[in-house]
């Protein structure tokens, strides 16, 4: 751990580091005894954080005249007990049923599901080793059929399209080594992007690829990470299908998990466990009390072997339409992009003052696609004049395809072709369930 930063020349703490037992004697005679803790980045000036014997941390201001001396360590800590999963959940019969069956590969990428509290910064940070992860999920260690493959240790907002390709390649390799299914643990912020990217990048999938994450970090007793992971493992080790899905809580309860198609799922809440929802279609199914129940057709497993269908074009921009958007600023933002996805208002509109840069971009060979920021419903150019004008400018309307999915698909399409016309056709052709189908008014 770092030393607390030096305060001034006569810093009474200079000789001490976090973890040291200290005694602070104030000029009033008041003595504080405790263990020096890392300072929070939000702590005030000259504040020292002490963990008292009671377990409480308090902030004490080092006033002039205060002295700090080495203190006595509090009594020896009680023996460590490793974190464990609730026995009722860890020891269900089917978890133990086929310990020698084909393995499931668990690819870890970081994110909350594999993060712990950083007491120094006060935030959560990814774990640094598979060992550390196993401490959170000891039921993984007990399963001989799981191959843990650390890929990244990053929060998902820091992942890039290059990382999606790396992850897809690792997935292909896992199947090549004999995995029957692959689970990817991932930060939830951009999990839907990665899921969509894997869906476009992976061909001939011989088994399930299941992404899961956590909305609560695993150092919390209430973390949803363990139960999400367990549901994902069940799906990857028992179900038979060949597509990329996201499995997360279906509601606030820990006993029901929704299975979402990778190209239809979106994070719809910043903090709830059931943040993930399928848009425009119902979920593919549910894992309920340990049982998988399909409610829509899932793509069957292919014979394999799986192939990577890359690369991804990185010069793609995503533009959000809003009143008052400045055409010059937008044009500058998209100037070297080969593809631009617009999340338009309503049925897929932009202020008409944006048309000139769109026409110039299309003339340069840029592919421009329109989606709706409503998320639910289709983008449709023929209802209003603006839409018709956009179509005349060769903007391709992507029906109900989600803006982020369209962004990922644009990167994938432009990685396959240099022809704008072909790219526009590929964007509209359904590849993995991302576009088309019926939108019904009544459930079921």
């Amino acid at each position, binding site marked *: 751990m770092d030393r607390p930063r030096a305060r001034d020349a006569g810093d009474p703490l200079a000789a001490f580091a976090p973890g040291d037992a200290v005694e602070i004697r104030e000029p009033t005679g008041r003595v504080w005894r405790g263990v020096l803790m890392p300072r*929070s980045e939000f702590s005030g000036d000259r504040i020292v954080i002490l963990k008292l014997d009671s377990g409480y*941390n*308090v*902030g*004490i201001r080092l006033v002039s005249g205060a002295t700090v001396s080495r203190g006595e360590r509090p009594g020896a800590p009680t023996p460590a007990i490793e974190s464990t*999963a609730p026995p009722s959940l860890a020891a269900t019969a089917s978890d133990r049923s086929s310990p020698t069956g084909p393995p499931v590969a668990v690819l870890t990428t970081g994110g909350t599901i594999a993060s712990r*509290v950083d*007491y120094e910064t006060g935030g959560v940070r990814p774990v640094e080793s598979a060992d550390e992860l196993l401490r959170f999920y000891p039921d993984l260690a007990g399963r001989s059929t799981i191959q843990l493959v650390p890929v990244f240790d990053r929060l998902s907002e820091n992942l890039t399209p290059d990382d999606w390709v790396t992850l897809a390649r690792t997935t292909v390799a896992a199947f090549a080594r004999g995995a029957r299914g692959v689970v990817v643990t991932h930060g939830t912020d951009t999990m839907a992007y990665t899921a969509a990217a894997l869906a476009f990048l992976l061909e001939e999938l011989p088994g399930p690829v299941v992404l899961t994450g956590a909305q609560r970090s695993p150092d919390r*007793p209430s973390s949803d990470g363990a139960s999400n992971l367990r549901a994902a493992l069940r799906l990857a080790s028992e179900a038979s299908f060949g597509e990329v899905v996201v499995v997360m809580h279906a509601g606030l309860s820990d006993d029901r998990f929704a299975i979402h198609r990778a190209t239809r799922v979106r994070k719809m809440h910043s903090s709830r466990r059931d943040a993930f929802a399928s848009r425009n279609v119902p979920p593919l199914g549910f894992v309920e009390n340990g049982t998988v129940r399909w409610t829509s057709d899932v793509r069957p497993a292919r014979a394999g072997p799986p192939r990577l269908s890359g690369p991804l074009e990185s010069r793609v921009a995503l533009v959000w339409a809003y009143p008052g958007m400045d055409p010059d600023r937008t044009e500058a933002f998209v100037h070297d992009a080969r593809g631009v996805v617009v999340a338009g208002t309503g049925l897929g509109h932009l202020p008409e003052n944006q048309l000139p840069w769109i026409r110039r971009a299309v003339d340069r060979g840029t592919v421009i696609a329109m989606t709706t920021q409503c998320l639910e419903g289709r983008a449709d150019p023929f209802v209003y004049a603006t839409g018709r004008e956009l179509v005349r400018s060769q903007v391709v309307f992507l029906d109900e395809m989600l803006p982020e999915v369209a962004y990922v698909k644009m990167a994938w399409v432009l990685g396959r072709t240099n022809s704008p016309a072909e790219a526009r056709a590929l964007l509209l052709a359904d590849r993995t369930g991302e576009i088309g189908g019926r939108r019904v008014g009544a459930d079921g």
Partner: protein
Amino acid sequence: MKAGLEVHVQLATGKLFCRCPAELTEEVRGTFVRSLRAVSGENRQVDVAARFEFERSHRFRYEMTGSDCLVEADEEPPLGLDEAALDAALRLASWLHARIVDEIQVMRKIVVDGSNTSGFQRTALVAVDGRLAVGGRDVSIPTICLEEDAARRIAQEGETVTYRLDRLGIPLIEISTGPELASGEELRLVAEEIGSLVRATGPVRRGLGSIREDVNVSIPGGSRVEIKGVQELRAVSTFADGEAARQRWLLSLRDALVARGTPPRPGSPVAVDGELADVETGPIRRALTSGGVVLAMALPGFAGRLGRSSDQPFWFGRELADHARGAGVGGIIHSDELPGHGITSVQVERLRRRLALDPPDAFVLVADRDRTRAERALERVRRRAEQAFEGVPGETRDPLPDGTTRFSRPLAGQERMYPETDIPPIALSDARIARAAAPRPKGAAEQRECLQREFGLPAEVARVLVADGEAPAFAELVRRGHEPAVVARLLTQDIAEAADGRERVPAFSLDVLSSLLEALRAGRFSKEGKPAVLRALLDGAPSVDAAIAAAGLTELSEHDLEAMVARIVATNRPLVEARGLDAFSPLMGDVMREARGRYDGERVAAALRAQLERSIRSARPGPPHG
């Protein structure tokens, strides 16, 4: 005896970490189900108490209400500390001459019994080193904390425990005394003094459960035992004295065990399904029939030490059973209660032979459908039996309605705490502390004396008013012109009587109490009608007028009273004619029944007397015309 107190007082500000009202409710709007896991803290260790709870492997069902939001559901990060609650804590800290910390760090105290959806209670140390003068001496107040209350436990069915989220997050001020109180009576006095001081900080909840005490007790040679969640101030002394007696009993049990000189080594669990296959009734039969196991464990040296004796309210078999239940089994059977529970003396002999027991040895049986659970239960029995040779184990106990206590879990260590990183540290500048400041109110003794002197209240009434924290309400209502005796009666007796048997007693505002007293004085209902009006208010009547109406006491005019009396007299004409004015007594009963508290008894009596006189006069022949 050495004893200390932790007093927890609910605040009536908003909730501590969200902006929900701090109100309990019966309206459930939805439920969800969760499980919790023991996790490692800052130093990557799992606390023994957390581990213990977690072995019970419960499922938790939570009821959502109008008093909770996504924060209580553990679906949203907490908001900042409620400022009014912090003010109250700071005010109290300065009244107690405590050293307020310079920066508050909210901590997570791991609690995996399900009472917190997050698996931890948020708590913050606000001040240390306070002192409180009680009965002429200073009691030390080592810590003053601000923390969130837990969810309300509603029910348990099998392994599913139901909690309601309305109480979760209500701010609690926690005041601890040093372990320096020497008797139950002293504990009670200190608890009352603290209670009245906290109530003076301002927005404090009233009613049952709004103040809860934890009592720490140890005796020389014993250990610290914490009795958690005593709900009544006066019960504090009962539980403290009872715990001291229990520790004396455990020490004498140890002396007796050690005197026997037996090695303190219980045996290993042995399956005895075969030995007990012919048991026909009782818990063993039920377990075997449902495919369960019966395990036995020898307890060398314990024969005759497990059962009840007439001279003690404690018996060791009960201690063992309480520990075993912690592992999720229904209980244990021990050899001091056999033959019994469907087990015959022949079967007992068989068991003793199987376990190779000598006469001073005892054994326990656990029957359960889950073998692992039965083994875990016996492991706990073994540990507890070994502790009997040492004396008194430090532990947490639950208070029971009969005044005894029951083992709940081991004492928690400091591993339970780690920082709540979702909330940045809160700096307490001198200016911030000054903003919360208020003059220190009178102490409890001073308040009692003042009530007796200024209002002529009897000592006991003054004591109850102060102990319940109602002295300020009393003074204000009297200032508003109400009769002191009537006000005191309302605050100390009437409300409690009307609320008898209710789980939840809302706190009435001073305005409501004042208009109630005003209506009573104006004769809008009589003192006989008071309980009905109070009950209507407790049932949720929005105003005193509405309560009077709901109680069926809507005001009748003088004319209505006369009409009613006239009707009753007319109906009883034969009686009146036969007995004249002597019919008053029997008729008064009828009239009062109908008046049902709407009129004062004296007014009714006057009206009846007048009506009788009129009636008798009119029945006589008139004076002759001359």
